């Protein structure tokens, strides 16, 4: 459903993503793992069409990502990106204005779960509340692909459960979910596949239950095996 071919991005003298061939299929929740700066965010932004590749390409349903594919790909960045003047309601209206697959009713329901109200001003939200708002507005879209960059960042334990439940609620058979996180344990049960990226290169794209069954190792164990000596 989403596939990168020889995808490469160079920033100045640094190669952020290095000839990555990665094929992601619908019906799966992928955990994209790797230390900070390993290229996860850059890969996602290229798949979202926000960053243009230096070489290679990303295909969505067989065609290069484009303005058209943005209709079906919901991307959530780590950093807050809403306009400073926006209230929670304005954020929903904005999405409703631009995304045909956005449901305001679903947004309201998600807000209720997340204990957010429409009147709240985005610039006054705590980092945890902001993270919840980003999830709510992104998951209120009925997209084909969801790419969530660090959805658990800066969020307390209880809110993480809430976010995990929301993600699982909408991860249906016809959807593709890709989440990056450095909180590997948070992703252990939610994801069924893991994509490991190291220094811009793809290490592996593996089925987690098969790995547990055959090798008796957890995703966190595998993470340590792969990055153990590079992470300070």
């Amino acid at each position, binding site marked *: 459903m989403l596939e990168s071919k020889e995808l490469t991005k160079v920033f100045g003298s640094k190669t952020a993503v290095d000839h990555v061939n990665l094929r992601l299929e619908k019906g*799966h*929740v992928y955990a994209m793992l790797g230390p900070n700066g390993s290229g996860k965010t850059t890969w996602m932004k290229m798949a979202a069409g926000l960053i243009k590749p230096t070489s290679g390409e990303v295909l969505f349903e067989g065609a290069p990502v484009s303005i058209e594919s943005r209709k079906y790909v919901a991307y959530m960045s780590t950093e807050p990106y809403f306009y400073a003047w926006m209230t929670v309601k304005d954020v929903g209206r904005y999405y409703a204005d631009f995304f045909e697959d956005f449901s305001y009713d679903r947004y309201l329901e998600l807000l209720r779960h997340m204990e957010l109200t429409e009147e709240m001003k985005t610039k006054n939200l705590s980092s945890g509340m902001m993270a919840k708002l980003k999830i709510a507005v992104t998951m209120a879209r009925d997209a084909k692909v969801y790419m969530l960059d660090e959805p658990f960042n800066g969020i307390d334990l209880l809110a993480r459960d809430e976010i995990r439940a929301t993600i*699982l609620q909408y*991860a249906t058979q016809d959807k593709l979910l890709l989440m990056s996180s450095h909180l590997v344990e948070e992703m252990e*049960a939610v994801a069924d596949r893991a994509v490991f990226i190291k220094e811009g290169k793809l290490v592996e794209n593996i089925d987690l*239950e098969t790995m*547990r069954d055959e090798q008796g*190792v957890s*995703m966190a164990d595998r993470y340590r095996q792969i990055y153990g000596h590079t992470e300070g």
Partner: protein
Amino acid sequence: MQYDPMRPIWLQVMGEIETSIAVGARQPGEKLPGGRELAVAYGINPNTAARVYQELEKAGLCETRRGMGTYVTGDGPRIDALREELARQAVALFLQKIESLGITRQEAAKMILKEE
């Protein structure tokens, strides 16, 4: 639920449901949550949840009625067999531990009977 991330998660969730059936917390013929509900309730991947039901069905512990959902089997003898199976597993685990301490089965049996 806390998982041991080194063992397949479907196996652990399945174990939990098996126990609930064996002890009668889930009655024969009782409707089980849908795949998605199970995923949300246990915080597990939907594919893992689907696998749990597949395996439970394979083991004859539940049955899926088309368009209706999944139900605990109404087969009483099968549930009795399950309880015995789980008990045997518990005994095996216990024996493994006790033998590693160098205690014989006879000694262990005495100790069990002495326990209040």
